[in-house]
């Protein structure tokens, strides 16, 4: 247990979200106006937790007898999770009303998912990782099917659940083997004795299963099969959340492997594995995305491809990779949330149409949405000076430092391919005229969320130092 008030203070982000979940449950039960109150409660807890984490970033401590780390690296992740979630809550207010899913559980589940991610990012014990993972995943299984009346949403939920459970099986089996060899569940002691344990083949098999399980979660090829259908079928705001914060949470766990090889430098037994999945994910994601006509599906493949870029860092396994991946995750989170925010706005007007053709002539109907969408597309394509470019630059640096120049070159090829489909959306918005005249209604909260994401994408691009110094301060 936390020993003193200062430790409780550091726990506040977790505590506030936990309390938020309970209060939200009670309000949902007893209040008729829960739909109008709950968004603001969730917004408050997320903004509070995000800001609190980043303010207390230097107060790095391990609480609960070596179970949970607060401050430091987890604080950066908490910031990404919570600010990302806050932006998506702003988007959701109007969006889920349209789909008649504006019940309290939507907000409660999102809070649970975020709490799960925070536990994952901060856990210093393998079981804590598992608890966090399940808290997040189960909430996401339900959220994916929140549009109860849409069959595609139901399908997405079922698919996500089945494959998610499959991946969890890998992880549990892996944990069992790891524990079997190391007789400890403490992440730190596993890392400390990594070189001894790796002499046992069962330990390596266990770790490999563990890594494969999380490869499902980061949506890397060849563990990506659930991604397109789930991203397309789920409610857009939910897709936005799981494609960004969900991926970030899974990466926060994979970074443990990376720190294991960093501390026991010279042991990067998984580098070939990550190099292969990085190559395959980048190329597969970019090439298949070209053929997509549905924007959400296209972004699903783009998500696979971005998982590949970040996996370059895992293969490189040096300290640049560590900070590079974290930067990339933050950049990816904000540019993707912005893009999904705009999709949710357009989807509302256009009778659930998320096809590229629905964007024809958007520039003349809503210059501001078109401009921001282009911004996010250029950022995803890695055009400077936007945040996405800097993430890529940093990851490429790590690859070249690790003598994996070929991996950076593959990344280059994949980037060039991906430019084509990101630009295609811009082509629809600016270079084509719309076929039908639709009255576009943009609610102010969604717009706020889009604008904030856009500003962050520009800010982290023009002044990467702001984020980079924070990351470097916790990595070293």
């Amino acid at each position: 247990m936390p020993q003193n008030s200062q430790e409780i203070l550091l726990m506040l982000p977790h505590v506030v979200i936990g309390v938020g979940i309970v209060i939200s449950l009670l309000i949902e039960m007893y209040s008729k106006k829960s739909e109008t109150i709950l968004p603001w409660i969730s917004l408050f807890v997320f903004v509070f937790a995000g800001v609190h984490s980043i303010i207390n970033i230097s107060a790095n401590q391990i609480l609960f007898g070596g179970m949970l780390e607060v401050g430091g690296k987890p604080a950066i992740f908490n910031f990404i999770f919570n600010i990302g979630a806050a932006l998506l809550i702003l988007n959701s207010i109007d969006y889920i009303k349209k789909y008649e899913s504006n019940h309290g559980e939507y907000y409660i589940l999102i809070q649970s998912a975020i709490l799960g991610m925070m536990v994952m990012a901060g856990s210093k014990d393998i079981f804590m990782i598992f608890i966090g993972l399940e808290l997040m995943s189960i909430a996401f299984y339900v959220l994916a099917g929140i549009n109860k009346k849409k069959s595609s949403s139901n399908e997405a939920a079922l698919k996500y659940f089945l494959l998610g459970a499959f991946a969890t099986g890998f992880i549990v089996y892996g944990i069992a083997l790891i524990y079997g060899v190391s007789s400890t569940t403490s992440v730190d002691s596993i890392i400390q004795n990594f070189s001894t344990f790796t002499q046992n083949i069962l330990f390596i098999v266990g770790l490999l299963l563990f890594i494969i399980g999380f490869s499902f979660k980061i949506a890397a090829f060849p563990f990506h099969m659930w991604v397109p259908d789930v991203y397309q079928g789920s409610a857009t705001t939910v897709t936005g959340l799981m494609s960004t914060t969900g991926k970030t949470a899974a990466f926060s766990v994979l970074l443990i492997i990376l720190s294991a090889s960093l501390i026991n430098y010279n042991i990067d037994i998984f580098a070939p594995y990550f190099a292969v999945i990085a190559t395959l994910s980048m190329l597969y994601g970019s090439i298949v995305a070209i053929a997509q006509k549905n924007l959400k599906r296209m972004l699903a493949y783009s998500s696979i491809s971005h998982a590949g870029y970040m996996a370059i860092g895992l293969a490189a396994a040096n300290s640049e990779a560590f900070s590079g991946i974290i930067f990339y995750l933050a950049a990816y989170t904000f540019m993707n949330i912005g893009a999904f925010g705009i999709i949710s706005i357009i989807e509302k007007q256009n009778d659930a149409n998320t096809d590229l053709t629905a964007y024809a002539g958007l520039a003349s109907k809503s210059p501001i949405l078109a401009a921001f969408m282009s911004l996010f597309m250029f950022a995803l394509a890695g055009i400077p000076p936007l945040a996405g470019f800097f993430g890529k630059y940093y990851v490429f640096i790590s690859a070249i430092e690790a003598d994996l120049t070929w991996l950076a070159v593959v990344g280059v090829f994949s980037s060039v391919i991906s430019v084509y489909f990101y630009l295609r959306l811009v082509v629809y918005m600016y270079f084509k005229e719309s076929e039908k005249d639709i009255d576009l209604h943009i609610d102010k909260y969604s717009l706020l969320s889009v604008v904030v994401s856009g500003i962050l994408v520009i800010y982290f691009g023009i002044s990467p130092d702001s984020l980079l110094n924070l990351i470097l301060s916790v990595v070293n």
Partner: protein
Amino acid sequence: MENGSILTYLLITPILGSLILLFIRKEQENLIQWFGLAVSLAAFIISLVMFTNFDQSNGSFQLVEKYLWIDGLNVSYHIGVDGISVLLILLTTFLTPLTLISTWGTIKKNIKLFTFFMLFLEAGMLGVFISLDLFLFYIFWEAMLIPMYFIIGVWGGENRIYASIKFFIYTMFGSLLMLVAIIWLAVDASSQLGYFTTNLLELYKVGPTIARDIQNYLFLAFFFSFAIKVPLFPLHTWLPDAHVQAPTAGSVILAGVLLKMGTYGLIRFNLPLFPQASVEFAPYISVFAVIGIIYGALVAMVQTDMKKLVAYSSVAHLGFVVLGIFAMTVESVQGAVIQMINHGLSTGALFLLVGMIYERTHSREISFYGGIAKLVPVYATFLMIASLSSIGLPGMNGFIGEFLILLGSFKSQVLDNWWFTIFAASGVIFAAVYLLWMYQRVVFGNVTNPKLENLSDMNGKEWLVLVPIILLIFWIGIYPTTFLDITETSTINILEQVQNFTIKLLN
């Protein structure tokens, strides 16, 4: 205005201008046009002030500013100019206001967005020419693709979507390879200097010491990126598409400045960073340059579309520039820089003239015209001057550049082969053939097309756009010393850097 940060003022003027523009209402088109012109003129005036502060006798970088930008990766906002970039900056700020005026009345769709992108583009081009940090350079180099992509895609011709995407992907492919090479250099610097850096001046020391086989790869990565932009045969295929589909203003900026960024990159980065590889590859590259000169001219000859003809003539002209750069003599490199300016002026003028007549008749087919000398004598005169300048008639700018390049490549020790010069010289003759033949078919003869009868001659706005360009064409042609003096010491500086690691280049 403090002289110490004049380059920042220059860079920030179009950026601020484009941002302020966003707050002007879309319907106030006149205000937007005048505002855009005012901003670009302000940038021009600042560039003139910068020029007066520039010391021609000093070949190293001047007006340098350096502030740490990204602490974590040791990237600085590091800018400065030498004699070569000064000329290109002046060309950029000179052409931008003229092109903006030329769009008055011809660009009708979304004037606000167009002006925004033109100013954004100007900032990107200026940034490329003043960056002394490879990271900063790369950012401007890439960011500048966005406005050009929109200018072609939104205001272009029928096939604009294909052309704009081709332009973007082609250029991006080359530049990403360069990015990998930039990182490679910086990582290598960290093993030699002890810290990761993308500072160009420090990398000038690191680059030549890199092992030869790796230096070759790095050289090729940079070269590939610039050669696509130039564009050097056989990487030129995006250019005709982009030029033909782009609106006139887009073509003028594309030909006038954007292509120069490729040749500028070769001079600024390839030669001094990888001198040994440059000398080794020079003959091969020169072969492609000469092929480009002849190929561009031959293909231009058979074009039926005036704009396409001018576009292919660019391939030929830029071939001269690349030949001049890789001949690596003082004359040829200076000639290449002058030729870069010349091409910006004369091809810019040709694109403007083609655009002007297209506005009147909506046709660029050569066979559509004939005998317009009688209908629009002033236009015919301007077209004559621009064509002759492009051909390289003595007394006009083109002659100076081509002559210096041919002279330099003739006595080049790197190429050490007269045939380059002989074949390249034939390109001058071909240029006379395709341009004069086009001129003859369009301007002389009898008016056969009844649609031409109501053709009106040049209006005041068009005079205003063309006269400054024509004046410069004659200035360079008659008294080139003004311009050669600017580039001389910087050229010698770069060649000295190459010479320090390779064979003797300077006398």
